[in-house]
């Protein structure tokens, strides 16, 4: 089976790779190997995947940060939320 560049980029982006038959996997890999455009596109998709995974770790640090510079709820908002929790507890 022959893949066009559009089909290759679709397969790479949609992560349909695992659903392909062994022959199609080989054909796809071969296309990416010989085609400079798809090869570069594949590299960039992989680099973004790498970037997103690294960012996930940074995101956790950011969410957990107790630095005063990190965004936080203001006192008014905290009080409003606390009132909701306290009232619910009282009513239970």
């Amino acid at each position: 089976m022959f893949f066009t560049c559009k089909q290759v980029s679709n397969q790479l982006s949609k992560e349909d790779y695992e659903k392909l038959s062994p022959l199609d996997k080989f054909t796809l890999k071969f296309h990416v190997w010989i085609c400079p455009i798809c090869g570069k596109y594949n590299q960039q998709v992989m680099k973004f995947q790498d970037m997103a995974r690294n960012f996930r770790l940074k995101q956790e640090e950011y969410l957990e940060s107790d630095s005063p510079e990190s965004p936080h709820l203001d006192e008014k908002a905290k009080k409003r939320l606390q009132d909701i929790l306290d009232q619910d507890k009282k009513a239970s």
Partner: protein
Amino acid sequence: MSEKEDPHVKYETHLWVEKYGDYLYRFALMRLRDPQVAEDTVQETFLAALKNLHQFDGRVDVKYWLRGILRNKSVDYVRKSVRRKELQDEQVQEVVGQLLFKTSGIPTTRPKDWAFDPDAAFAQEEFWAAFQACLQALPEQTRLVFQLKMVDEESTEEICKEMDITDNYLWVTLHRARAQLKTCLESKWSAA
């Protein structure tokens, strides 16, 4: 109900603001960008959690349970907001998807090299601040699709179902997100 059985006591609801308030607010800000919307969504999350507290089995940490509710509320908000504001944009994106390739399936443009070395940039803290700023600058739905698919690595099927989009639309959105992020990072990082 005895104190031992009361889930309010068991899961320390009176401490949620102190323990998880800022964590959830930052999570909401990353998803929704607008501080007021983020604050309101945290409030909705607490209300939904209190309503369903008796169903919570404690198998996951309360923090991650609350974060899961907030994640769903954020997806709901963006889906409704996009339906209101960006319907025309969706049609445009489908067209953009068609234009990336000629009918023969050959790309119309060749991907350009990075203007900086991404691997070297990953090691620097400032790069991640630039990345976050670029991510925040993406249109609402594009940003959320990128976060759910690329950062959280959720399944295509689940995202499409929740956001009520087709997988082709998701693919085009991701392609667009990568292109916009690359341009933004190159201007912010290469110029730094």
